[in-house]
C-alpha cells in the first residue's frame, strides 16, 4: 500500500449511502473495519478543512446546516460548540469522549470497536477545522476490545503516515459513571482525578493544558465525519427537522436481540423493538435516557417516537440513546431503589447537597420498597429532590433525581403496595437493571488507569 493517507486526501467523492445504517454500515460480525475497508465503504474524508487565519473553517457552517446535535446526552448543537472553541483564542485541543460511564449504554464502545476509523476521522476533521494539533481519544478502561481497536486504528493511521494530520492519542479513563462528564475528563487529562470541577471555566474556555478544549461524544464525531463527506442535505434525509440524522441506541431488556441499533431520529419505539426480534416477555415500563433519564409507562409505549420533541410530553429525553425495557416479572420498586443506591454511590462526594441528598433519597426509596419507611415518605422524596436539583457542580444529581422522581410516579402503585405490605416475591431477584460490578466500582474515579 503506497500511502493510504495521501490517497485519503485526493480520491473523488464516494457514492452516497442512502438510508440506514450509516455509522454502522458494513460492520462485520466480529472485529473492526480496517482503514482500507473503512475507506471502501465511506470513501476518503474530504480535504482537511484547515482553519483560516481570520475566517472560520467552512466545515463549521456545514455542521450547522446539518443541525447536528451532540449524542453524549445533552443534545447541544455541535456547531455552536465548535464556534465557542474556535473563538477562544489559543490553539485548541480535541477530546473524543468514549468514556461511556452509563451502565446501560454500549453504543460508544461498540462504535469504537467496530468503526474506529470513522470516529478518528471525526476527531481529525474537527481538530483541523479548529487548528488543533492534538486529538485525545478517551475510552473507558473496562472496554478492552474497544481500547485495543482504537489503539490499532491509531497505529494503522500513523503507519499510513499523513504527517499533516493532528496527533491522535488514546487515553484510558476509569470505569466510573462520572468519568465521562466533561470537566471530570478534562481534570483527568490534566493529571488529576477524574472528578467534575466547578465551572466556569468551561472546557471550551480552559480545558486540557489550559487550552480551549472541544469535548465531543464519539458518536457525535462519527456523524461529523459523514457530514463532512456527504453534506448537510444528505444528513437531513433522515430524522426530523429539529433532530436530523440517525442515532445509535442501546436497547436492553426482554427482547430477542438486545444490543446497539442505529435508528432514524423520530422512529417509533415499536420499530426498534421489531428490529431486535420483538419482545420476549411482557413489558412493565421503559427507561429512556439511561440512569439520568425517565420512566415511561407501558401503556404509552406503542405510540412512542424516539425524538426529544416527542418525548418531551413524557418529560423524557433520548439522552445518550439508552432504551431499557423492564419486564413485567421484575419488581419496579426494588429495581429502582437498587439503582438509586448505586447512583448515590456514584456521587463524587464533593458537593454537600449531592452527597447528602442522593444518600437520603436512596435510603427513603429503599425503606419504602421494603415497607419500613416512615410516614409521608413521598413528601420527603419530593422535598429531598428539590434540595438536590441544581445544587451540584455537575448534572449528576439532577439526572439521578429525574430517574427517581419518574420511578416514583410511574411505579406509584407498586411503591404504595410495598409501603403497605413490605417486600414482594420479585424483590429478592432484583437485578434486571444493569449495574457495574463491585470490583469496577471500588476503583472508580480515583485511580489513573493504564493501558495494559
Amino acid at each position, binding site marked *: 500500500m503506497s500511502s493510504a493517507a495521501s490517497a485519503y486526501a485526493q480520491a473523488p467523492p464516494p457514492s452516497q449511502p442512502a438510508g440506514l445504517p450509516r455509522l454502522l454500515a458494513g460492520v462485520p460480525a466480529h472485529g473492526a473495519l480496517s482503514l482500507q475497508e473503512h475507506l471502501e465503504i465511506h470513501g476518503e474524508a474530504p480535504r482537511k478543512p484547515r482553519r483560516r487565519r481570520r475566517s472560520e473553517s467552512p466545515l463549521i457552517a456545514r455542521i450547522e446546516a446539518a443541525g447536528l446535535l451532540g449524542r453524549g446526552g445533552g443534545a447541544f448543537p455541535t456547531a455552536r460548540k465548535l464556534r465557542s472553541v474556535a473563538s477562544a483564542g489559543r490553539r485548541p485541543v480535541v477530546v473524543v469522549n468514549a468514556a461511556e460511564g452509563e451502565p446501560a449504554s454500549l453504543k460508544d464502545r461498540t462504535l469504537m470497536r467496530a468503526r474506529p476509523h470513522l470516529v478518528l476521522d471525526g476527531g481529525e476533521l474537527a481538530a483541523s477545522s479548529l487548528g488543533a494539533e492534538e486529538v485525545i481519544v478517551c475510552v473507558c478502561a473496562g472496554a478492552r476490545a474497544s481500547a485495543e481497536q482504537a489503539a490499532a486504528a491509531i497505529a494503522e493511521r500513523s503507519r499510513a503516515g499523513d504527517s499533516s494530520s493532528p496527533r491522535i492519542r488514546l487515553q484510558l479513563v476509569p470505569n466510573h459513571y462520572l468519568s465521562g462528564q466533561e470537566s471530570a475528563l478534562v481534570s483527568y487529562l490534566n493529571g488529576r482525578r477524574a472528578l467534575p*470541577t*466547578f465551572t466556569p471555566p468551561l472546557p471550551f474556555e480552559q480545558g486540557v493544558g489550559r487550552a480551549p478544549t472541544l469535548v465531543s461524544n464519539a458518536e457525535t464525531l462519527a456523524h461529523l465525519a459523514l457530514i463532512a463527506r456527504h453534506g448537510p442535505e444528505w444528513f437531513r434525509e433522515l430524522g426530523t427537522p429539529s433532530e436530523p440524522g440517525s442515532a445509535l441506541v442501546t436497547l436492553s431488556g426482554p427482547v430477542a436481540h438486545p444490543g446497539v441499533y442505529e435508528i432514524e431520529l423520530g422512529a417509533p419505539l415499536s420499530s426498534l423493538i421489531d428490529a431486535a426480534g420483538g419482545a420476549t416477555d411482557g413489558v412493565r415500563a421503559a427507561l429512556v435516557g439511561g440512569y439520568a433519564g425517565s420512566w415511561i409507562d407501558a401503556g404509552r409505549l406503542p405510540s412512542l417516537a424516539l425524538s426529544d420533541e416527542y418525548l418531551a410530553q413524557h418529560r423524557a429525553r433520548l439522552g445518550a440513546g439508552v432504551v431499557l425495557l423492564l419486564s413485567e416479572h421484575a419488581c419496579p420498586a426494588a429495581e429502582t431503589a437498587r439503582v438509586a443506591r448505586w447512583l448515590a454511590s456514584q456521587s463524587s462526594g*464533593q*458537593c*454537600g*447537597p449531592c452527597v*447528602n441528598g442522593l444518600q437520603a433519597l436512596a435510603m427513603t426509596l429503599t425503606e419504602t420498597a421494603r415497607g419500613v419507611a416512615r410516614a409521608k415518605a413521598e413528601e420527603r422524596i419530593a422535598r429531598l429532590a428539590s434540595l438536590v436539583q441544581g*445544587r451540584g*457542580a455537575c448534572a449528576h444529581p439532577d439526572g439521578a433525581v429525574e430517574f427517581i422522581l419518574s420511578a416514583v410516579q410511574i411505579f406509584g402503585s407498586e411503591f404504595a403496595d410495598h409501603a403497605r405490605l413490605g417486600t414482594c416475591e420479585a424483590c429478592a431477584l432484583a437485578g434486571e437493571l444493569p449495574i457495574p460490578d463491585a470490583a469496577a466500582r471500588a476503583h472508580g474515579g480515583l485511580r489513573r488507569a493504564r493501558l495494559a
Partner: protein
Amino acid sequence: MSYRLRVNPIACEAHGMCAELLPERITPDEWGYPLISAEPLPESLLEHARRAAQACPTLALLLERERARS
C-alpha cells in the same frame, strides 16, 4: 449592573456564615448548606452580600455580575 449570588458547591463546607450575614437571601438546608433565593439582589443588600462572601472561610460564596445572555 445587577449581581447574583452563587455557591461553589465543591468548596462549600457548610460553615453557615453566609446564612447568618445575609438571612434575607440565604437559608441553610437540612444539612447546613446554603439555599440561595432566586430573587434579585437589590442595591440595599449588595454590601451585606459582599460581606457574606468575604466572611466565607472557604470563599465558596460568589457574588457575580449577571452575565449577559449570549
